[in-house]
């Protein structure tokens, strides 16, 4: 079974600084997708960024980028120029390509990100 581990229950960063959230996963699959979701206090789950395992290039979305290390099964999220609106729970998630993603996402337990003004 696939597992996703987020070892940082809470992280704190000063506004405008850069922070990196860690995620490791375990799978025997070679093709899969990885995601970072954000859950603000409203509890709405919002997709931040996605990465296909077959792509060597790390995904980037504006201030958000990932460091995908397939051999190490590591998928960290870097947030540059942190803003107060980035404060939220961040979840790393995995789904296997073999199921076409139909069998759902496996989530880590989340990292609570605090932005200090």
């Amino acid at each position, binding site marked *: 079974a696939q597992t*996703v581990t*987020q070892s940082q229950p809470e992280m704190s960063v000063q506004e405008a600084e850069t922070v990196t959230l860690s995620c490791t996963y375990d799978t025997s699959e070679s093709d899969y*997708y990885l*995601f970072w979701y954000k859950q603000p206090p*409203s*509890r*709405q*789950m919002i*997709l931040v960024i*996605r990465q296909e395992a077959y792509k060597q290039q790390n995904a980037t979305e504006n201030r958000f980028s990932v460091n995908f290390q397939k051999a190490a099964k590591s998928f960290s999220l870097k947030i540059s120029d942190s803003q107060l609106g980035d404060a939220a729970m961040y*979840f790393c*998630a995995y*789904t296997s*390509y073999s199921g*076409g*993603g*139909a*069998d*759902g*996402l*496996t*989530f*880590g*337990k*989340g990292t609570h990100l605090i932005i200090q003004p």
Partner: protein
Amino acid sequence: SQTIHQWPATLVQPVGSPLSLECTVEGTSNPNLYWYRQAAGRGLQLLFYSVGIGQISSEVPQNLSASRPQDRQFILSSKKLLLSDSGFYLCAWSPGMGVNTEAFFGQGTRLTVV
């Protein structure tokens, strides 16, 4: 554009009472549908998923059940709630075809069993 509706937003139910949470998706056909539960301070746990009408797969054995009576309708039910059923329930959908496997979530239902 696609939208997902989930209701009610909050629910307080006594132990032993029945449960029915409903989720509908608009603007797409034949979506994959999911029910997740988020316990306090924890990540999301997949409860059920469905790839088509009447097709339900269960990930976790429990006293909950799911049904998909229509293509874009997904219902989470229980005949008798337990205290341990309290939590935040999220419905989600993903495209039924293609490789765009990201999931889109509803607003969630906070269930408190008393």
